[in-house]
């Protein structure tokens, strides 16, 4: 087999030659064409997955910093970042049976208020006197408090605060409600997970192809693994 030398590489188009820049003598001279094409595919998929999922990774990184420094944001806002503001108040034009479940009451209230169509939770208040419904929304969550005694419905919206928004987006998951869009979000999260795992393995592949980086790369990888293991067994 004739090894791939500089001559055959020079015959490639400019963009392909550019993509093999920095690959090292090893790849050019000893790897069969199929391996090189696979390597290029790995690189492209690594890049395009990162471009597509950049917003998700940005949110997860920024939100983790916000959660890791909750006290800082609490001080910045002068209190808890979750603040509710009354939006409207009305009397519900209907009644519910005494044994109605909070979840079904919550759905009826949200439908009446035209806030249905998305993820929500409903529970009885600790004193049992009201039903509290939380309508989950990435940007403006709402809290609806219904008091059966006087059929009063109070709707509050959460004031937008960056740290609270980031934490909501980080924690948002799917597959736990009947709404398709919620599951679509859950699928996107799963795809991000798969992408992260792919980035790890494709990154290792790309590192191994760069012979000049093997030693330092291996040292750093072992150092990181050692530090991680130390934490695992000590805290």
């Amino acid at each position: 087999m004739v090894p791939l030398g500089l001559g055959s590489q020079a015959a490639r188009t400019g963009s392909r030659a550019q993509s093999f820049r920095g690959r090292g003598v090893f790849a050019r001279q000893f790897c069969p064409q199929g391996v090189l094409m696979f390597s290029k595919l790995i690189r492209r998929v690594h890049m395009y997955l990162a471009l597509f999922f950049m917003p998700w990774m940005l949110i997860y990184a920024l939100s983790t910093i916000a959660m890791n420094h909750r006290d800082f944001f609490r001080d910045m806002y002068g209190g808890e970042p979750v603040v509710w503001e009354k939006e409207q108040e009305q009397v519900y034009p209907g009644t519910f049976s005494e044994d109605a479940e909070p979840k079904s009451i919550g759905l009826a209230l949200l439908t009446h208020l035209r806030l249905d169509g998305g993820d929500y939770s409903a529970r009885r208040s600790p004193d049992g006197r009201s039903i509290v419904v939380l309508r989950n929304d990435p940007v403006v969550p709402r809290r609806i408090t219904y008091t059966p005694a006087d059929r009063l419905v109070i709707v509050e919206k959460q004031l937008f605060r960056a740290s609270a928004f980031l934490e909501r987006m980080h924690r948002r998951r799917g597959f736990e409600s009947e709404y398709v869009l919620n599951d679509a979000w859950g699928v996107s999260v799963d795809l991000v997970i798969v992408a992260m795992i792919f980035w790890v393995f494709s990154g290792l592949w790309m590192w191994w192809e760069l012979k000049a980086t093997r030693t330092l790369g291996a040292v750093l990888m072992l150092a990181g693994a050692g530090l991680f293991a130390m934490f695992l067994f000590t805290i």
Partner: protein
Amino acid sequence: MTFDRLNRRVHLYLAMFLLPWFFMYAVSSIPFSHASYFRTLYDDGTPQWTQRFEREYDLALPEQTEGDREIGARILQDLGLDGAFDTYRPNPRTLFVSLVEFQNRTRVVYSADERRLALQDGQLRWYEFLQGMHARGGFRQDLFLHDAWAWTVDFVMVAILFWIASGLYMWWHLPAQRFWGSLVLAAGAGSFVLFLYVL
């Protein structure tokens, strides 16, 4: 060394060092994303918590929760336990004091009304172990190694931000990839914004 090469090398070497954390965050996200499925893995009737002992104990538990960490520290001290811990009130008159450890699950349950506390050991479920690793962070423990872990979490997140910026830089310097890369970038951003609007 050119800036281009330096950028590539830092992108690579950061990833090599932080590989365990990045891989852990990915894998540990799975039980969060599919929580209801993972809960069914252990519904064979085995109790999640077993009691090591129970005894009488009397300590004031005020309505306000701001002082719960001091109360938790006092309880642990009286039991001869130490280490990082968190507190939680499932109801106003009960306090959970949970020791924070990757490999063990131990908690103290104090009931103010009954004036009793119980020390319990938890069954270490592997998916909860992963979730514990994922959620660990913050500087509330005031213990050196726990703060060190929190700093590494910060470091990983800064690294992710760097990988995004350096990755964009590397992509832009591949002219042949700019068109499709821009389309993919716009598609991803558009999808994300759409989710913000419709969820």
